[in-house]
């Protein structure tokens, strides 16, 4: 994984998770993510809302995806990487991850005065999993450094 930011520590307290892919015609599709985890090799496994039907249909090994993680202070990190496999059905551990993520993001939203009902409304009804090898990390916090790559001199 690229150096420059402790992504796991940043995500741990509960952050908003969104992502995107693009099909072979370069048409992008934004989607909601409801939990991520890391395997022993440091690959990121994202649980993507099943309404991302174009992503589900087109992601294959080597497809680029991006993910943004934004905390309640609007600090934001963007991750880019390539899929290691086709999309997968969620397993028991993924379902448990979604349950834990729901608790964390509701708690985080309360600190910003947002209702837990909002989280219930945006919670995906189902999800699929995509595992990516993270290759690039960017500071996505709004401001003059937005888009700067972590680990590189400006």
């Amino acid at each position, binding site marked *: 994984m690229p150096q420059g930011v402790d992504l796991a520590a940043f995500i741990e307290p509960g952050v908003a998770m969104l992502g995107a892919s*693009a099909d072979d015609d*370069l048409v992008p*599709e934004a989607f909601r993510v409801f939990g991520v985890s890391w395997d022993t090799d440091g690959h990121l496994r994202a649980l993507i809302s099943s309404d991302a039907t174009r992503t589900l249909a087109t992601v294959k090994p080597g497809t680029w995806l991006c993910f943004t993680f934004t905390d309640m202070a609007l600090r934001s990190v963007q991750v*880019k990487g390539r899929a290691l496999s086709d999309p997968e059905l969620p397993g028991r551990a993924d379902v448990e991850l979604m349950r834990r993520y729901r608790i964390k993001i509701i708690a985080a939203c309360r600190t910003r005065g947002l209702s837990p009902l909002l989280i219930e409304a945006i919670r995906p009804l189902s999800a699929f999993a995509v595992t990516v090898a993270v290759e690039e990390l960017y500071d996505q916090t*709004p401001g003059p450094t937005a888009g700067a790559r972590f680990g590189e001199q400006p």
Partner: protein
Amino acid sequence: MPGCFDGVVPPLIVTCSVQGVPNAANLSQLHYVDASHVALSNQFFSKTTANLADNPRASVLVTDSQTGNTYRLSLRFERSETSGALFEELRASIDAIAAMMGATEIFKLRAADVYRVLDCEHLTGPKIEP
């Protein structure tokens, strides 16, 4: 869907390079222009702008802060406006957000980017009673 345009839940815009690499950027606010167009405030979008120069397609995820309904807009970039009524409207809105955040020197509007809405998907989730 007025709650989609209040900026309470920051929308996300995604573009794609010609190499097939998607790029996401947080938005301050989505602006309604007319029944087939929206405008986005271009503040820090260097990568977004570069991608749109080669590939005008974009995808925006926006959540209605009042209902929780989420929509995915499929967009085609049409033009950037750096003056005129729309630009001034967006600038006033950005200035207000910047003042609230104490970041008036950081939030500067570069352009009002206008997009045609090609499609609007209502993404379903668990229903909540009002």
